[in-house]
């Protein structure tokens, strides 16, 4: 994976840049010693590392504006960073960039239950948004697996999803407004506490733009009352194809589960060895969760079980209590850790049409055999968002490259069956060079033209999302 070579002009002015930032920010907000900036050298895509020129941690929107103004004036690239949990390298620095961390923008600014929204600083973690409203039995719906650590800023940048978005949607469906600072320091409000855009839906454009259009400092988020209850059913099948057909039948039947999670045999085996969740040893396992009152849950689960029985499950285990629910979820929630126990792994994030699930799983198996690397599949089956986990050995020379090739082949496969490269993690640097497989040059041009509008100098997170040769003329023109 390539990154553009750092600008020597910027590197040579390092002292001046730090000094200017120190003038407009509190002392503790500018991090520049070699040891300290190392904390920002990578995000959760740890295969790639590069310490930034420096990092700033503004505590107010005005400080963000002041920092960006300095960087804009001096022509310094800025990489915005939430909590640094991106699996796509969305917050990977370059040596000539300033990391702008949102961690200190973490206040709850306003909660409004009658109007069902909360306004928070963008550095606040996803789970602590729910934490701020759960006394009133409300919650913030998008629930990425990293929700304990990940920041709303990153959620907005990547349009994050989660296990429950089959029912509640992803970030963009739950975001009402933002306060954003443009690269030149201009502060603007987009959207608000009302539901739709006055003119063009700029909010929809900003959500998922991977920190390339502006730095979001505050977000107004929709909150919902918690359901009365939720319970899953676990079902095992001796054939992936049958499990796939069962998912499709459940959806068609008019039951809308809040989550449908899928694990294949390699994943089940790893998980059992690690978490001892008591899962059946079979080819495919589904966890289907529904919500409502006890009676409503019983009714929906009985419909789901009836459908499942038509597909001859090897196991059908309905939760009757909170303990049983936790036991069913235990394995799924430990799946990534379990795979990590065996080896290093790379987590992919392609989406496919649900109908091609069995075929895609077969082809992934073929590819896995071809490359000689094991792949476990654990994913959100209801919406076709797959997370193939490729196991490799980072200490074995060439294994990472092999793993990346296999990953690329799997993602291309997702595109070829009518899906996409990334369902919820974002493009970052990880899938940047595969974008031409999904998009034609004119499609990418239309997207880059949007960045031209918001950030004409291409200073915000410039080396992400778009293949480097596609964005080269723009990045060079800006220098």
């Amino acid at each position, binding site marked *: 994976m390539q990154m553009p070579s750092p600008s020597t002009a910027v590197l040579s002015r390092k002292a001046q840049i730090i000094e200017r930032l120190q003038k407009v920010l509190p002392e503790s907000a500018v991090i520049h010693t070699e040891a300290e900036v190392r904390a920002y050298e990578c995000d959760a895509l740890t295969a790639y590392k590069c310490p930034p020129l420096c990092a700033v941690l503004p505590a107010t929107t005005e400080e963000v504006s002041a920092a960006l103004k300095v960087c804009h004036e001096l022509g310094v690239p800025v990489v915005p960073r939430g909590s640094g949990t991106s699996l796509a390298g969305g917050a990977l620095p370059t040596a000539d960039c300033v990391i702008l961390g949102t961690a200190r923008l973490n206040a709850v600014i306003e909660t*409004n239950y*009658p*109007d*069902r929204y909360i306004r928070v600083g963008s550095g606040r973690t996803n789970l602590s948004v729910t934490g701020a409203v759960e006394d009133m039995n*409300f919650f913030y719906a998008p629930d990425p697996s990293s929700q304990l650590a990940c920041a709303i800023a990153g959620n907005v940048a990547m*349009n994050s*999803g989660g296990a429950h978005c089959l029912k509640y*949607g992803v970030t*963009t*469906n739950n975001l009402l407004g933002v306060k954003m600072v443009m690269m030149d320091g201009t502060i603007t*409000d*987009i959207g*608000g*506490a*009302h*539901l*739709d*855009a006055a*003119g*063009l*839906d*700029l*909010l*929809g*454009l900003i959500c*998922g733009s991977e920190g390339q259009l502006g730095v979001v400092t505050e977000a107004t988020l929709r909150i919902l*009352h918690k359901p009365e209850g939720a319970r899953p059913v676990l079902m095992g099948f001796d054939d992936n194809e049958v499990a796939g057909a069962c*998912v*499709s*039948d459940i*959806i*068609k039947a*008019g039951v809308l589960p809040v989550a449908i999670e899928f694990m294949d045999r390699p994943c089940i085996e790893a998980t059992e060895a690690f978490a001892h969740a008591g899962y059946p040893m079979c080819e495919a396992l589904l966890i289907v969760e529904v919500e409502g*009152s006890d*009676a*409503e849950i019983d*009714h*929906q689960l009985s419909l789901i079980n009836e459908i499942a029985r038509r597909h001859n499950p090897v196991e059908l285990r309905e939760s009757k209590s909170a303990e049983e629910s936790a036991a069913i979820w235990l394995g799924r929630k430990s799946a990534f850790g379990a795979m990590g126990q065996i080896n290093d792994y790379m987590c992919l994030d392609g*989406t496919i*049409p*649900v109908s091609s699930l069995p075929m895609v799983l077969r082809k992934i198996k073929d590819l896995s055999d071809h490359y000689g690397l094991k792949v476990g599949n654990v994913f959100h089956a209801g*919406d*076709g968002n797959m997370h193939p986990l490729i196991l490799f050995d980072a200490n074995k020379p060439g294994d990472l490259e092999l793993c990346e090739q296999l990953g690329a082949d799997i993602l291309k496969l997702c595109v070829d069956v*009518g*899906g*996409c*490269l*990334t*369902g919820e993690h974002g493009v970052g640097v990880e899938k940047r060079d595969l*974008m031409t497989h999904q998009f*034609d040059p*004119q*499609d*990418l041009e*239309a*997207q880059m*033209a*949007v960045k031209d*509008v*918001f950030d004409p100098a291409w200073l915000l997170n410039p080396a992400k999302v778009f293949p480097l040769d596609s964005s080269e003329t723009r990045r060079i023109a800006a220098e």
Partner: protein
Amino acid sequence: MMTPKTEAELADAIKSAPAPLHITGGGTRDIGTPIEGAPLRTTGLTGITLYEPGALTLVAQAGTSLAEIETALDSENQRLAFEPMDHRALLQTTGTPTIGGVVAANVSGSRRISVGACRDHLLGVRYVDGQGTIIKNGGRVMKNVTGYDLVKVLAGSYGTLGVLSEISLKVLPKPETSTTLCLHDLSVTDSVSAMSAALGSPFEVTGAATVASTTYLRLEGFEASVAYRAERLRALLAGYGAITQIAHSDGETLWRDITNVQAFKDHAAVTRVSVQPSHAPKFAQALTDDSDLAMDWGGGLMWFGMRGNDAQNTDFHLKLQAMARQNGGHATLIKAPASLRSSLSVFQPENQTVAQLTSALRAKFDPRGILNPGLMT
């Protein structure tokens, strides 16, 4: 009149257009500032290209009639959950609504409050920009964060950024049944507070509207579940007076009329205001003897029907826009004679930064300024 039959023909028509175009789908939504331009209709681009009920996805050419799509969905017991508004009664237009028109105007009905707007169900688009270039964005899967989400900005852009050629949508199963609770003769403040209580409950209210002093709350789902939630909701709202109930079949007509703002079909002018619900009572203070109010989305969507003369209606609309500027939200003049719409801001004027971004975006999508120019002003 240009009516291209294929996406390539559409691209040619735009590429070779010497002057501004007036782009429409079925022509049932005469919304915005009236514009001049050579008529271009998308009604020649028809047909459902893909429908996978098990994946909850449907792809159709932009000119496909909404009726054709709804019939196809109905046969699988599915629907467009965002409940697109039909503007024909309100605007007294004729013609056939198209799916492209629904998306271009981002029209969503009462259920928007619980399931999201048209833009939230829009998975992907193909469109032709102002230079005649064919561009795709999004796709046909429910979770997709690959590249910028141009899909969202195309929705509700009224053909001013590009002409849609293909639409990909998320669809949802139809519920088994529904029921509607009715609360009577509440003040605006009380009806908003009742709707907020209902929407803030765990009972999954899928419609909360107030028309002609009746407040309606809709519940949908499996029969036993609907009955259970109706009972719980009645208990929750006991303090708001007597509650009556409307059964599923009557409810369907009722909610169609609410979504389509049928109540104001004879009003001379209608302004649509989007606000945070608790601000609704403040906006309602603008009401005069010559105006009426209907609310949807729990009070977050306010329809002001005006019965005054042009001068009075102009003042009223501008007053609502001034209130929106002050309190947040926005006001759009959805219905008025063309002459009136030409003389004022139909859409809410935006703050300076947003206005600059908007016009710079337009210049990128449509550098020659030929796609419905000036419609969204």
